[in-house]
């Protein structure tokens, strides 16, 4: 069952084309790693899917609902972590999560149950009563993730969910995504390539707004150029990094 779909998505800011004809589908059970260099258009694509930005051309669907034409139904099924995990700085963690739950139409008992679960899963108990402006970067990110999960959505769009987390929390987050995966369609953008091998069933690579690759991590690995054993690497790279560099730099024509 296809839960996320973009069809020939184009997003222009003035004369600048940030997303240039991107089409892909994500089915239930898939975890798609969304990769690409800085400024490739990952966040912009995610914003369009979430319905925050209107596409210049093409369309995006969440659980079959057009995110522009049927926005409320689409958003009901969507959990979205925007880039940078924004949250109201003047609210406490608890008040903020309760606000989001209420805005999503969850009843008081459901909210209590869901938040209880998430607090344990994402380790938020110690900061529950603290104001968000006083949180460390990692905790802020975790609050953002809790916010995206509060209504147990079918679709998760997470923009750099592990950015700023410590190694233990990164591991926890990956495990969390793995446990959620079977029942959801998940798209995660990341700059950490091991993450793709660890949790993603598929990887999409974009560069300069164009889709460069859409296949399993193994197939992407196969696109890594052969290494010349004569050249000593100053900085050691993994094969996946080689593939990423090859695919994305090729688009820049260098």
């Amino acid at each position, binding site marked *: 069952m296809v839960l996320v779909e973009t069809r020939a998505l184009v997003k222009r*800011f003035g004369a600048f084309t940030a997303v240039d004809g991107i089409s892909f589908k994500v089915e239930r059970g898939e975890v798609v790693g969304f990769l690409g260099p800085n400024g490739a258009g990952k966040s912009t694509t995610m*914003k369009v899917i*979430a*319905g*925050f*930005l*209107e596409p*210049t051309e093409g369309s995006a669907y969440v659980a079959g609902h057009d995110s522009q034409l049927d*926005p*409320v*139904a689409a*958003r*009901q099924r*969507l959990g*979205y972590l*925007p*880039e*940078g995990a*924004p*949250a*109201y*700085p*003047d*609210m406490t963690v608890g008040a903020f999560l309760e*606000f*989001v739950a*209420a*805005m*999503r*139409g969850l009843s008081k008992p459901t909210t209590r149950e869901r938040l209880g679960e998430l607090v344990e899963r994402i380790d938020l108990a110690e900061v529950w009563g603290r104001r968000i402006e006083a949180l460390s970067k990692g905790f802020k990110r975790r609050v953002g993730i809790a*916010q995206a999960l509060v209504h147990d959505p079918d679709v998760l769009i997470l923009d750099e969910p592990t950015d700023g987390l410590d190694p233990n929390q990164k591991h926890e987050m990956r495990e969390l995504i793995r446990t959620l995966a079977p029942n959801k369609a998940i798209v995660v953008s990341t700059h950490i390539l091991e993450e793709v091998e660890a949790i993603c069933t598929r990887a999409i690579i974009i560069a300069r707004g164009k889709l460069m690759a859409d296949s399993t991590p193994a197939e992407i690995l196969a696109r890594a150029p052969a290494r010349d054993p004569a050249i000593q690497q100053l900085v050691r790279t993994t094969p996946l990094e080689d593939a990423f560099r090859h695919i994305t730099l090729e688009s820049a024509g260098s």
Partner: protein
Amino acid sequence: MSKTLLVFRREFAGYFATPLATVFLVVFLAVSAGMTFFVANFFDRGQADMNAFFLWHPWLYLVLMPAIGMRLWAEERRSGTIELLMTLPVRPWQLVVGKWLAAWAFAGLALALSAPLWITVNYLGSPDNGVILACYIGSWLMAGSFLAISACVSALTKNQVLAFIGAVVAGFVFVMAGFDLVLAAVRPWAPDIVVQAIASMSFIGHFQRITDGVLEVPALVFFISLIVFALWLNVQALDARKAA
């Protein structure tokens, strides 16, 4: 609970999250009291009414309401929370109305804190309390109009200072609309109907009719329509930014 009410509650509490709310309330009371007693000579008038108090409200609100309204959307855009808010399963108008209501309630609170003055007037003489009540309602509606304009301007930028300046300029147009100075500048080249239309947008004109205690229904309708229109524009402004 309705989504609008949830937004209202969060936003209203937001005003009190910083000392700014207290500062604002103190400034509002100090300035309005100062104008009432020193500029309008409340006591020398020897009249038991509150006209000296209400007289200055259009000018006071011109600056104070943009100060309340400037953060409504600009702050969300600056901090990125707008992305969160606008991807919740709610209609933009629910957010727009909820936010405006919070600002309006805050303005209402400031206005309510002037109640001691009303009590004093009753203690000193026997004013027409019906007129005073009408003045309060009119003043509050005018504050709502300034706030709706401010909220609308705030939706266009992520810079609160710009939002403030834009709202003051827009408000100034409405305050000045009734002045002969403005009308005289327009009259030579514009058809009569345009001159009348501009004159009829005057905040001061409508507010004066309310404080005079006559003919207040059309004036109330004017402010209410203006609020509705500005909030509608606010929704359009949010929509336009999506396509930007």
